[in-house]
């Protein structure tokens, strides 16, 4: 029939081979290669993240310290943008043309079809005028974002601030944080981040090729709801916190007040401070820049980071240890000729003023250096000069129990441990066995290498107020709506001094206020027990220090006030402390004959910038030329210097964070 009949097989064969090629390719992309299913998933699945509202922070009576307020981000979807008057738009947003171009390029680079942030954090007032006209610019939309706001502008160093999360943190968060998330950077915002941030919600949507939502992915199976952050009830008392910040205005220093029966911190002033609202919103970067440039470092958290020689405020502790050791009794007396002689050296007592015959209580009340040096030497030389090191080690351990030279484990980042010298420290200076009780005698009066933070000083007063124990000081009283209290804050920490030993010391402290150095700070109707301190330091006037607790029976407040470079403790720190105590205990400040709060609020005791800026000019030791003193002061300067350096470091760190945010 046809000579080419067999060619049907050739043709069929060619067809079949080509179809087999197609089939094997289909088999490869559909069954073998897993990438396409993932691509398809990525095409349609759009996780939409709902940020949880950050938990508010309240004061101890429930008044808000931090709330959330709506700000607005202007978003842009480049593909939806129609030609518009750029100049007009820039004017509306209050930006210039180069900024516009930069932000536009960034948005286009991010995605043409997906919205991204064009301009961040516009306040509700600015937004009101923008909102009316935003519809004239298709493609631009707005989205609310909740930022922190501080109704009373107090407690900046306590509250800290939040900022965009760094890349490093994102990488270490196991996928929790995403770029642009806000996290606590300092203060409570940082230490309670996990409680405050809440749980982010995710909705998985399916979108079409134009990014239009088409329905829930997998019927919402992988969606989670946002859970708002828990509220924190802080231990601060808004009223005295406000008063404290006013009193410390134009001064450098801190106030720390603690409720002895709980360890709750009532007042936490770091001065100079700043308005925490400055660290929110669009001007945040500029504001932060200015604050960093402030020579008094408002970001330095003085209550826990500044270290001062406690000075005379340390004397009650000296006395307590001696009583406990049985070295002295309350009636042990000493004749003060206006100086104290140890070995071949002579130490002046309070500018050479002779106290005459003093016992323990009056030594505390009159702040007699000689008495406490005598007591200190008795302890150190109890078993002879050869045992000095061993005795010092014992003494040091006892002081350490009071929380000096150690971190008190405050629920805040950045706590310093102060300084409590070790035997090794003296070995290094004077070689092993080369130092005696007289060498380290200034420790007896809270000078020398001894450094304490205001928090440690206030805690010391709690211990005295409680007759021998303290609760860990803390700033957050309760977590969440259930007011959960951390267990560790309910435990008493005993310091190893019998409660009976406290009475004579407290008698002396009462006398300080009743008739002693701090008589001007006596509060009508309240028995306050306190101790002034005047800490010599290497740069300028001594620091004015006052520690106290009140009332004497069933104490409700223990306080430490430091006003840097302002002179004697009785002049500045003590009155300020008394106002705080009175306000806290009575709710108001009654008029007094000699002093009024307004005077202290208005006084300017800011140190000169050149002398304050110790980084540039470490001061030479002042009056005493003895070897030991020289060592001490240069050491002190070193300590302060290192504090300054730390500060500088953290500044640099913060600056770079800020830069990252652009």
């Amino acid at each position: 029939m046809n000579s080419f009949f067999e060619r049907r097989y050739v043709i069929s064969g060619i067809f079949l081979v080509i179809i087999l090629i197609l089939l094997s390719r289909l088999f490869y992309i559909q069954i073998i290669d897993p990438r396409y299913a993932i691509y398809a998933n990525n095409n349609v699945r759009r996780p939409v993240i709902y940020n949880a509202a950050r938990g508010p922070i309240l004061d101890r009576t429930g008044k808000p310290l931090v709330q959330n307020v709506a700000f607005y981000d202007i978003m842009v979807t480049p593909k939806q943008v129609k030609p518009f008057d750029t100049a007009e738009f820039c004017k509306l947003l209050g930006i210039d043309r180069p900024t516009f171009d930069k932000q536009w390029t960034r948005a286009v680079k991010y995605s043409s079809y997906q919205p991204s942030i064009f301009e961040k954090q516009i306040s509700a007032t600015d937004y009101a005028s923008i909102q009316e006209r935003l519809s004239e610019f298709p493609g631009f939309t707005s989205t609310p974002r909740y930022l922190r706001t501080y109704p009373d502008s107090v407690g900046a160093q306590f509250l800290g601030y939040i900022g965009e999360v760094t890349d490093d943190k994102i990488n270490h968060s196991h996928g929790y944080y995403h770029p642009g998330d806000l996290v606590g950077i300092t203060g409570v915002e940082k230490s309670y981040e996990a409680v405050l941030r809440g749980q982010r919600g995710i909705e998985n949507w399916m979108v079409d090729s134009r990014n239009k939502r088409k329905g829930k992915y997998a019927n919402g199976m992988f969606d989670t709801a946002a859970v708002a952050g828990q509220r924190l009830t802080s231990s601060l008392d808004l009223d005295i916190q406000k008063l404290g910040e006013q009193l410390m205005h134009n001064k450098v220093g801190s106030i720390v007040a603690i409720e002895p029966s709980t360890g709750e911190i009532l007042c936490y002033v770091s001065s100079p401070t700043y308005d925490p609202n400055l660290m929110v919103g669009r001007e945040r970067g500029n504001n932060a820049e200015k604050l960093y440039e402030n020579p008094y470092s408002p970001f330095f958290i003085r209550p826990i980071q500044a270290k001062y020689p406690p000075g005379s405020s340390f004397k009650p502790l000296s006395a307590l240890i001696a009583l406990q050791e049985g070295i002295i009794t309350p009636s042990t007396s000493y004749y003060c000729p206006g100086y104290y002689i140890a070995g071949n050296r002579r130490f002046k007592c309070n500018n050479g003023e002779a106290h005459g015959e003093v016992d323990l209580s009056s030594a505390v009340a009159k702040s007699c250096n000689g008495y406490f040096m005598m007591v200190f030497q008795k302890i150190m030389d109890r078993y002879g000069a050869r045992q000095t090191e061993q005795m010092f080690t014992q003494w040091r351990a006892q002081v350490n129990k009071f929380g000096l030279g150690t971190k008190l484990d405050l629920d805040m980042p950045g706590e310093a441990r102060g300084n409590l010298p070790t035997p090794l420290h003296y070995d290094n200076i004077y070689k092993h066995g080369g130092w005696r009780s007289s060498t380290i005698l200034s420790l007896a009066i809270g000078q020398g290498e001894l450094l304490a933070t205001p928090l440690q000083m206030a805690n010391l007063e709690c211990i005295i107020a409680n007759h021998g124990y303290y609760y860990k000081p803390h700033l957050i009283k309760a977590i969440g709506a259930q007011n959960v209290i951390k267990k560790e804050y309910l435990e008493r920490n005993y310091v190893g001094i019998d409660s009976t030993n406290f009475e004579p010391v407290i008698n002396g402290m009462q006398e300080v206020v009743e008739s002693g150095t701090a008589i001007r700070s006596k509060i009508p109707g309240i028995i306050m027990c306190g101790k002034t301190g005047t800490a010599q330091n290497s740069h300028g006037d001594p620091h004015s220090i006052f520690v106290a607790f009140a009332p004497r029976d069933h104490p409700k407040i223990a306080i430490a006030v430091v006003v840097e470079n302002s002179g004697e403790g009785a002049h500045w720190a003590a009155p300020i402390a008394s106002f705080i105590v009175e306000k806290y205990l009575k709710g108001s400040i009654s008029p007094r004959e000699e002093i009024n709060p307004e005077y202290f609020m208005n006084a300017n005791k800011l140190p000169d910038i050149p002398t304050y800026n110790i980084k540039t000019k470490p001061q030479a030791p002042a009056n005493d030329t003895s070897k030991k003193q020289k060592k001490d002061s240069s050491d002190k300067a070193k300590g302060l210097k290192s504090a300054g350096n730390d500060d500088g470091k953290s500044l640099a760190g913060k600056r770079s964070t800020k830069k990252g945010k652009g």
Partner: protein
Amino acid sequence: MNNQRSFFFNVDWVTVFIYLALCTIGWFNIHSAVLDPKYHGILDFKTDYSKQFWYIIAALVVAIIVLLLESRFITALAPAFYGVSILLLMVVLVIGRNVGGNQAWLSLGGGVRLQPSEFAKFTTCLLLARYLSSVNVRVTELRSFSVALAIIGVPMVLILLQPDMGSTLVFYSFIFVLYREGLSPYFLVISALFITLFLTSILFSPLSVIAVISIVVLLIILLFRKNKKLVMTMLAGLAICIAFVFSVKFIYNHVLQPHQKVRIDIVLGIKNDPRGQGYNVNQSKIAIGSGKLWGKGYLHGTQTKYSFVPAQSTDFIFCTVGEEWGFAGSLAVLGLYTALILRLIFLAERQRSPFSRIYGYGAASIIFFHVMINIATTIGLAPVIGIPLPLISYGGSSLISFTLLIFVLVKLDSNRMGIV
């Protein structure tokens, strides 16, 4: 009576069944690809699937009419059909509607458009069969071969002017018909050689391609140097190849349109442009690849439903098949096509009349070519040239012309015992 009975007995129900299966599969996939939850109507002629529904009804009517016609009528009118389609191809160049860069459509009013190039394939097939089955015509003879080439070439040129590269290339499938009728197998070999040369000379520098083929040719000449005729042929072939390689660069750079160049580049892997020119193919591959073995289920494809894949109801309809029915579905559809093509070849071979046989091969080749290029395009094995998947792709012209193509053969076959 007898005639009526034999009519039903003689219709090849296997072909009819495959035809109906493919049309049904087509309709469901179009329905899924373009489903708009707001319009559910199937009869309202508003959506693609509603239109396709009516096109299928129309195609069935056409099929029945074809079956009722006299076979003689079909052969007799072949030149007329051809003439009309050539005329329409000319008319479309003048008053046609331009859609997607191709001036390929004649508007018939009411939203219905006719694509003459679809019908030209069918009429060319008819006329070619008619000519090659004439007495004294042999493909092996130059004159007959030239006439056959002219019959194929005229519509090709007219379609190329639209310019519809895809439909033009479809006419190349007639090479199988000519081969079956006696064309030298060298034409197939040379075709394959030229396609390979074309692709390699785009991929590599012309000089290296020429160097390689020169070495091969010289080796052959060295081996068979005693056969003078072979040596001469090889040398001539080499010359042609060299000329071709250089002309490829020229054609590629100066004749092809930029988008065609890019499409070729993408298939060859020279360019990777998943957001621009390569978007279609990339999304199409994602759609098909994400179907896995069993697919995402009817109406559950995300790639196609959410319009990531363009032209999803026409040229890229296979994406819906691959995505929603998986490899199983792909295998079933390709299986049906294979069965259809082999069945058409089987029908062609059992014809007594050369006309029917040649026509049958033409039909099989055209369908094969469409299936091969269309599916290869969707999985990135061929450049995007835009030809429909027979019976499945949305489109009335295409559906009806394939119906004609198939049912004319069924009609001829049912009548194979008679004399045409």
